[in-house]
């Protein structure tokens, strides 16, 4: 091998900071071959098996579905359809426990299988894909429901569309499989190396990338050998390199693998496309090949069922939607000293409390750990600031500082220390001598920060609205004042220019108001001559008159004059009988009423 491929020996590899050596435990499950699984009685297909919006179910309870048929359509761009992974009848569309760290339930389509495995009509194979536009291929990948199979389950078609701003020069294929225990990618590379290479060929064409680097940790010699053979037989061997990388957790992290293979760092908060790289899992590459060359949707995947609490650790080829209990039963069931059941690997997986959860497109491993394998870390001691976490952190963070500020809920400081560059790989918690559940604190702080961000957005929105309202009211007030002022000035000018002012008024409405005003003024003047001060109490009933008189008597008793006792616009009205318009504008009802009566 080496003689024909001297380049492998000379390729320079880079290192990322930190990382840890953990017992890989691959030997438990990497012997033998991938076993088929019998079709389960029931398939539980979550509508959200990917990052993004949940898919929209397009079948009804009672519908008969065929294997490979779309049962839920994507809703939005970042989404993926869901296909029936066997034929049968839809018996429920309801919330079921799903593999999720929260342990909550989510909407699922439940199919009772008929055991006949009748295929739906699949889309045409696109064997001459090199003559096709990348957009057509992306649509096929999307229609087949392909998502990232390394664990993140990001819709692959979206990742394959980096846009014109980001020309892609390198495709990185992730065969590192750095999590301990998991061997499904190892088996995939050993058994389906040809399909992986086909997938690579399609992806290279689709992305217009120059080269492909396939990174595999050197604890998988079988996979490396098999992939090298497949490469040698492939017609793209000049553009593809199989690179054995040192075994060091978490070298299979996307950003870490890119660093190891190319020396480039994906910018913080950025994506690999920004440095001209797209990274896909080996399983995803095989799924792309299936989608394009066979028209087969993603309805099956390899799953490792392992851990010392499982009787016969194995790798299984599983229909998406198969309940975990079926896989465990096929592997001989669980032993008595089971401590926990984990979906995913021991470093980043999450504990599941129900065997009813289904296998999803992203579920690579079911891990049954014994007490010896996953002992209770005991109560956390105080942090002694030893800095082992910082030595182990692959993102070069200072985990002890993050912990300090996360614990004191200082969300600003925790972000100053770049909380969001944390990939939650668990290295820090693994090496912590105080057994502090560090990752838990970081997840908490991230969730709190997101929540606060939302709150802040809401508050900012409300504040903006409030400010706009105040401005509007101020503006209206200003306009009103301006109107009043012009009116007042008009009223003031009038006595001087009485003769010509009236006929010159253009607006008949204004003229009418002017006439009414003059009438009122004349009447008031006449009343004043008679010595009557205008009051708004003239036509009240006898009882009310008495009450008014009594009130005025009380006022006099406490030494208040009639006009002094009144405040505000009413007082103005009394003091300035010659300008009734002002009273009207500010509008106390009684004054208006008396005006009208007058």
């Amino acid at each position, binding site marked *: 091998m080496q003689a024909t491929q001297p380049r492998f020996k000379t390729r320079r590899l880079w290192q990322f*900071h930190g990382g840890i050596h*953990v017992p890989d435990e691959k030997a438990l499950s990497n012997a033998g071959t991938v076993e088929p699984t019998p079709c389960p009685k029931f398939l539980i297909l979550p509508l959200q098996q990917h990052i993004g919006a949940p898919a929209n179910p397009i079948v009804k309870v009672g519908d008969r579905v065929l294997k490979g048929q779309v049962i839920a359509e994507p809703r939005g761009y970042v989404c993926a359809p869901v296909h029936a992974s066997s034929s049968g009848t839809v018996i429920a569309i309801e919330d079921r426990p799903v593999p999720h*760290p929260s342990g909550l339930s989510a909407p699922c389509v439940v199919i009772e299988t008929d055991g006949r495995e009748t295929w739906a009509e699949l889309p045409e194979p696109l064997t001459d894909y090199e003559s096709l536009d990348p957009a057509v291929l992306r649509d096929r990948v999307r229609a087949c429901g392909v998502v990232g199979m390394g664990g993140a389950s990001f819709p692959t078609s979206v990742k394959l569309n980096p846009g014109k701003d980001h020309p892609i020069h390198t495709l990185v294929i992730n065969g590192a499989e750095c999590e301990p225990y998991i061997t499904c990618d190892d088996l995939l590379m050993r058994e389906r190396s040809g399909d992986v290479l086909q997938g690579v060929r399609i992806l290279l064409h689709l992305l217009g990338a120059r080269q492909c680097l396939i990174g595999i940790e050197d604890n998988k010699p079988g996979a490396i050998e098999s992939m090298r053979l497949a490469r040698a037989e492939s017609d793209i061997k000049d553009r593809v390199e199989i690179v054995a990388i040192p075994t060091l957790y978490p070298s299979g992290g996307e*950003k870490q693998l890119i660093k190891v293979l190319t020396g480039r*760092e*994906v*910018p*913080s*908060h*950025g994506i690999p496309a920004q440095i001209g790289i797209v990274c896909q899992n080996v399983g995803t590459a095989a799924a792309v090949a299936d989608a394009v060359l066979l028209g087969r949707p993603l309805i099956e995947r390899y799953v490792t069922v392992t851990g010392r609490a499982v009787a016969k650790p194995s790798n299984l080829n599983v229909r998406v939607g198969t309940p975990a209990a079926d896989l465990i039963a096929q592997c001989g069931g669980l032993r008595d000293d089971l*401590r*926990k059941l984990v979906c*995913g690997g*021991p*470093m*980043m*997986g*999450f*504990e599941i*409390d129900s065997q009813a959860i289904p296998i999803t497109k992203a579920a690579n491993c079911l*891990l049954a*750990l014994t007490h010896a*394998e*996953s*002992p*209770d*870390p005991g*109560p956390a*001691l*105080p*942090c*002694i*600031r*030893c*800095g*082992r976490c*910082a*030595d182990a952190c692959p*993102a*070069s*963070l*200072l985990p*002890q*500082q993050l912990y300090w500020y996360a614990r004191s809920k200082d969300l600003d400081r925790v972000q100053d*220390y*770049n909380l969001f*560059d944390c990939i*939650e790989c*668990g290295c820090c*918690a*693994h*090496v*912590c*001598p*105080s*057994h502090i*559940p560090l*990752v*838990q604190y970081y*997840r908490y702080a991230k969730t709190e920060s997101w929540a606060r961000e939302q709150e802040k957005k809401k508050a900012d929105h409300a504040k903006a609205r409030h400010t706009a309202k105040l401005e509007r009211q101020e503006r209206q007030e200003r306009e009103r004042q301006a109107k009043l002022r012009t009116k007042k000035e008009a009223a003031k000018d009038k006595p001087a220019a009485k003769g010509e002012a009236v006929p010159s008024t253009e607006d008949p409405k204004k003229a009418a108001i002017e006439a009414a005003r003059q009438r009122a003024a004349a009447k008031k003047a006449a009343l004043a001559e008679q010595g009557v001060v205008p009051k708004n109490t003239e036509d009240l009933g006898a009882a009310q008159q008495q009450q008014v008189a009594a009130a005025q008597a009380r006022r006099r008793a406490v030494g208040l004059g009639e006009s002094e006792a009144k405040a505000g616009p009413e007082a103005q009205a009394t003091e300035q009988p010659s300008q009734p318009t002002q009273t009207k504008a500010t509008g106390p009802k009684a004054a208006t009423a008396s005006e009208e009566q007058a």
Partner: protein
Amino acid sequence: MTGVVVSSPHSARINRVDRVMLQVILALIPGILAMTWLFGWGLLINMGLAVTFAIAAEALVMRLRGRPALPAISDLTAVVTAVLFAIAVPPILPWWLTLIGILFAIVVVKQLYGGLGYNPFNPAMAAYVLLLISYPVAMTTWLPPQMLADQTLTFGDSLRAIFLGLAPGGTWDAVTAATPLGEMRTQLGVNRMIDEIRQSPLWGDFGGRGWEWVGNWFLLGGIYLIWKRIITWHIPVAFIAGLLVMAGMFWALDPQTHPFPAFHLFSGGAILGAFFIATDPVTACTTKKGQLIFGAAIGALVFVIRTWGGYPDAVAFAVLLMNIAAPTIDYYTQPRVFGHQRGS
């Protein structure tokens, strides 16, 4: 199933605080044996007292704080503090000074600041400095190494000295001696030249006779700690470099008023300080760059205080001074985070 779902990772933890502390104690054993051989039983008696007081004080405070005492005691951090304290003080220190020192270290310096992990100052060194300032005579009354002693103290003599304050033969002058650092300081203080001073049989190849070989054994333990990855090389190497550079510079300028750099390194608490005291994780810097600055500054300060300060040895003062600076140094020496531009 456990019932309580905990976050990843689910792997077994590979380190434990008590195991780390046990390794530190193991690494101190060669140095302790060497000192016991040179200075008699006093060190071991002091150590027994200090450890007992420390455990009692820790248990008492934890009880007052309404927290379980057992985990705090079994993490062995108080024991390490007590052992380091006992190594640092003279082997015939009266028992009640050990009591005062340990109570101050555990109750005030450690627990009043919040207990393990929260104390800004190294408890053993803070206690040492408290006693040195308050009881300078008792704290500088050392025994000569056995090859220079007219009369070595038996186990009974040591017990009587520590518990009753009784000198063997009735007078202390016959059995005590200044440390090489103290002697050098006194002699330089009366304007004698190094060549003259070194005529005395007190001096060995480069340090005080007997004394100069204690450091080796602590060095051995320190290398063990680095090998076991309990500590990293950064602080000790920077400490030693800081001390040697300062001492070497002044020695090169005037070798008659400044002792040979190796004298500084293998006298007093320099090696012990470099590997076991400055590396206390709680009170030291945590970033690698910060640790280099922290260690180098302590080394330089040790020379400065020894040469121009008021006390013959300076490790405790230098460590405490840099303890204050550690958080600031950490703040300004944060590593570049993955995917960030340098300097941003």
